[in-house]
């Protein structure tokens, strides 16, 4: 069973993503409400994948990705964000995300993205 770190400053968005993950059979989800909390939680270890927003207080999602990638090159990271420009997608890939999902998204989108890296229903 996958354990996922979910970072988004919007409680509504965390609930939407959590519900989507639960529908995909992923129930071990640890939530972070800002970027600093996300990197602190990640440092404690034990995550199979990370889902992070871009625009958050404290560290941005890009900074979260860069921080994680300083020590961990392999844990899959999927960014889910409203940032929709091609330059942003490129920036996120360069920072080290494995995939990128633009909001709004459907559970099916998340299943496809996450399914490439971790078992989902």
């Amino acid at each position: 069973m996958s354990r996922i770190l979910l970072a988004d400053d919007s409680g509504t968005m965390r609930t939407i993503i959590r519900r989507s993950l639960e529908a995909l059979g992923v129930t071990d989800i640890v939530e972070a409400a800002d970027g600093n909390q996300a990197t602190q939680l990640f440092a404690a270890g034990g995550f199979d994948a990370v889902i992070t927003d871009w625009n958050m207080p404290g560290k941005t999602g890009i900074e979260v990705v860069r921080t994680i990638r300083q020590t961990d090159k392999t844990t899959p990271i999927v960014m889910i964000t409203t940032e929709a420009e091609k330059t942003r997608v490129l920036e996120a890939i360069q920072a080290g995300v494995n995939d990128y999902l633009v909001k709004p998204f459907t559970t099916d989108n998340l299943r496809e993205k996450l399914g490439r890296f971790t078992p989902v229903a």
Partner: protein
Amino acid sequence: MTTLAATPALDSLSFEYVRKLVLERSAIALETGKGYLVESRLMPIARAHGHGTLSAFIESLRRQPHGILHTQVVEAMTTNETSFFRDIHPFDALRTIVLPELVSARSAAKKLNLWSAACSTGQEPYSIAILLAEHFPALSDWTVNIYATDLSQQVLDRAQAGQFTQLEANRGLPAALLVKYFDKVGLHWHIKPAIKRRVRFLQANLIEPWPMLPAMDVIFMRNVLIYFTPETKRQILSKVRGQLAAGGTLFLGGAETTLGIDDAWRRVNHGKTSTYRLGPAANS
């Protein structure tokens, strides 16, 4: 003012009702764990009929005799939402088994013909073109023709335009491929001309005479036979046999098979997907 209500998650009884309805009416089995699909496909119908929750809508379906609404539900659940690299496993088989075999078998002629035979808005033939560009750069001096046909000219026009909304781009395209093979123009992602040029779109109805096409090394005919009667399926599969080049491979949809319909085909298993071939098995 309209009464606005919430969308509680789908309960298992409601899911079971929809699963049975779809199975009885379409022979398509919804896997458990696909409750989210029921929700996203049926909520718009539920809302349109004044139901605030999916459970209330399904409860009313349950209480009334089968009619138009039940048909709408079955259609909403079985209509194929196309996506890039749909179901992924057939594309993995194409990349790791089918194409490497063809590349060595056709190395003298340096020519390949592939056909996406129900291409809808173009995601399938473009996925094939992207896969070729990404993983088979050695084919750049080959003649590679990707044909894409569909019943609907309207749909073909969209496919030919090669412009996809963000929601369409979200479906099945890894970000690395999105930025490599598409450009963002306004709200849409446009497939790059170099990929677009590789696909030839033609209108064709599978149950009418087919346009002149070359013998195909690979045919994708996925999720289209399910809509036909067994007799029509048999006729189409027989025509496919005539269209497939020697050593060619047919891909069908996950819920489709030639077994019991046209036994000239041999099913080849590739882990999570199968392909269909003609003639005796190669030495294994």
